């Protein structure tokens, strides 16, 4: 389904980044990898593992990667004990608490399955949904996102902000995913090889995947359970962060094709403001305030706007230079979804 990788083979940095590929290829490759970031979930690890075991009892081969994100409780000890007894379970321990995005990326880098499923470590997702996600993926998608039906969370602090955020993210990115906050998702290996997550991008995976990797995306409803053990690790405070991240994602989307335009639009707006105030200055001089130093206000404002326009244009050129240098290297991996004709 995906065309052979070109170009990238020659880029040494690409090899550096995917050195883990060799690690992945070692040993037998399971069909399915389940990646679960865990952070201070000592009470949840055991039930989680047995739930995954039950859910995948009929699957031919699978592995479960528990990515410990710098837990300070007994999470790692419990996980490693389980891994000792079941070879299908692997534990990755991060050096400190990096956050969910980095933990997921660590899981992706070390997962060996042709299909990778992510989910939360707090048992609010139901592993029983995994086979349905995988089945849907095999109908011809690169990413299947779950959305939580009858979500079991507090209304004021979780559900309403989440509803607003999802609408906004859908609007801005043009990828109308119902539930960006749901971790239960299934990915094709080929997509993950081209997806590089950092900072807090895990909330925008569908948008980033669609914009930068041309992913075919769909969503299905999944179950959602109330939290039994441990505390929720999120709060309302992230609203500002999400807004800024959304701006980042939008920029990444827009800038890939036409970097100069993005800044050019801003420059044009500033220019128009400058012209408007220049006209106002002319009118003011001609009619009423042509005497004093204070009459420099309109010309001054006009010049400020022109200064901003100039500055934005220069930044646009910087962006253009950075992207023109870098993007062709990564273009080589654009997937060819279908090929018709030929010998």
């Amino acid at each position, binding site marked *: 389904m995906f065309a052979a990788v070109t170009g990238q083979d020659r880029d040494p*940095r*690409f090899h*550096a*980044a995917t*050195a883990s590929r060799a*690690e992945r290829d070692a040993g037998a490759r399971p069909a399915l990898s389940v990646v679960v970031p865990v952070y201070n979930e000592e009470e949840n690890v055991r039930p989680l593992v047995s739930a995954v075991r039950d859910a995948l009892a009929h699957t031919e081969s699978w592995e479960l990667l528990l990515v410990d994100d710098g837990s300070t409780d007994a999470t790692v000890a419990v*996980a*490693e004990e389980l*891994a*000792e007894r079941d*070879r299908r379970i*692997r*534990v*990755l*321990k*991060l*050096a*400190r608490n*990096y956050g969910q995005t*980095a*933990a997921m*990326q*660590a899981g992706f*880098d*070390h997962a060996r399955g042709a299909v990778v499923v992510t989910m939360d470590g707090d048992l609010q997702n139901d592993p029983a949904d995994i086979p349905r996600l995988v089945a849907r993926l095999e109908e011809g998608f690169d990413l299947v996102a779950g959305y939580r039906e009858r979500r079991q969370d507090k209304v004021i602090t979780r559900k309403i902000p989440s509803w607003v955020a999802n609408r906004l993210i859908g609007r801005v990115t043009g990828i109308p995913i119902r539930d960006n906050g749901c971790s239960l998702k299934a990915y094709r290996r080929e997509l993950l090889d081209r997806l590089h*997550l*950092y*900072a807090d991008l895990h909330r925008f995976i569908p948008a980033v995947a669609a914009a930068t990797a041309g992913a075919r995306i769909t969503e299905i409803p999944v179950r959602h359970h109330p939290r039994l053990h441990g505390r929720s690790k999120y709060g309302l405070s992230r609203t500002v*962060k999400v807004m*800024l*991240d959304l*701006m*980042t994602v939008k*920029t*990444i989307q827009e800038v890939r094709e036409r*970097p100069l335009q993005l*800044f050019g639009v*801003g420059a044009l707006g*500033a220019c128009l403001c400058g012209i408007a105030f220049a006209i*106002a200055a002319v009118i003011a001089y001609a009619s009423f*305030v042509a005497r004093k130093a*204070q*009459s420099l*206000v*309109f010309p*001054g*404002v006009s010049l*400020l*706007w022109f200064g*901003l326009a100039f*500055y*934005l244009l220069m*930044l646009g050129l*910087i*962006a253009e230079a*950075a*992207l023109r240098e*870098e*993007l062709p290297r*990564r273009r080589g991996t654009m997937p060819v979804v279908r090929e018709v004709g030929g010998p």
Partner: protein
Amino acid sequence: MSGVGVEVSRAAVAASAERGDSPVSVSVIVPVIERPESLTDLYREFSAPLRAAGRSFEFLFACEPWAYPLTGPVIDLARAGEPVRVLEVALSAGETTLLKAAAAHARAEVVVTLPAYRRVEAEALLTLIERVEQGADIVLARRWPRRDSWINRLQSRLLHALIGRVAGAELHDIACGVRAMRRRVLLDLPVYGDLARFLPLFAMREGYEVLEVNAPQHGADVQTRIYGPGIYLRRLLDVLGLFFLLRFTDKPLRFFGLIGSGFLLGGAAVLLTLFIQRVGGQGIADRPFLLLGVLLVVLGVQAIALGLIGEIVVYLHAPSRRPYRLARTSRNPPPER
């Protein structure tokens, strides 16, 4: 290995006869950068306790071009059979680069960084090395008890209080420069140039275990130091740089966006006030307040636009860097890198 070519000098060649045989237990790296004291005296004083404890060791003097002439006596030591090597790097690129270059050439798995001037009593090295051998990644010497003047201590207190706030680290003497660490850690740390002072903070950010151990301050280190205003300004800039590097390297828009939004809000408030007054019939053509409002908006847009450029750069580099470091994996041995 470390980006800057290292010229293995005459002395190193002289010492190469013994290199390659049994590895030593500790490599002491002396970056020769500022106000060096007699390097041979330094060597004699600090090698004595190591020798007394029966440890095998080597001293590496890493020099920038300007310091080449200082190495003559050290080369004589090497000729006389002392375990001393001199590394002359090809160009000046800051203390961290020197340290990394030397680490690349060190033969021991445990390295000690020792400034080219005496800061702590020589016996302290043994404790530092032991702690690393017991499993710590980096062990810092803290000059304590201090025999400095109160003015030095006050300066140090203030600097560390500031750093503590910025980096969330409880350290007391990062300027000391006497540290023991695993060689691998020094090579892997993403530090460069003049950031050597803050090396422990970057190590903590990478999830390494960093310890502080008290070491009596050396008599030669006791002097009142008051610097010119330029130095203090530079320290403040260092801390600002640190603040950004430690928290926002992979999300610049969080930093610039927050500043920019502040400006934008201020500007919007000013312009709104003016707008209401204008609708109320008051003229605004002679109000410099309008200039302020527009200036704030312009600054806000500029900060945000810069943040977006930063995000583009980070995005472009994403494929070539891993956003995490693994402490270990089950069953598989921990990865080498």
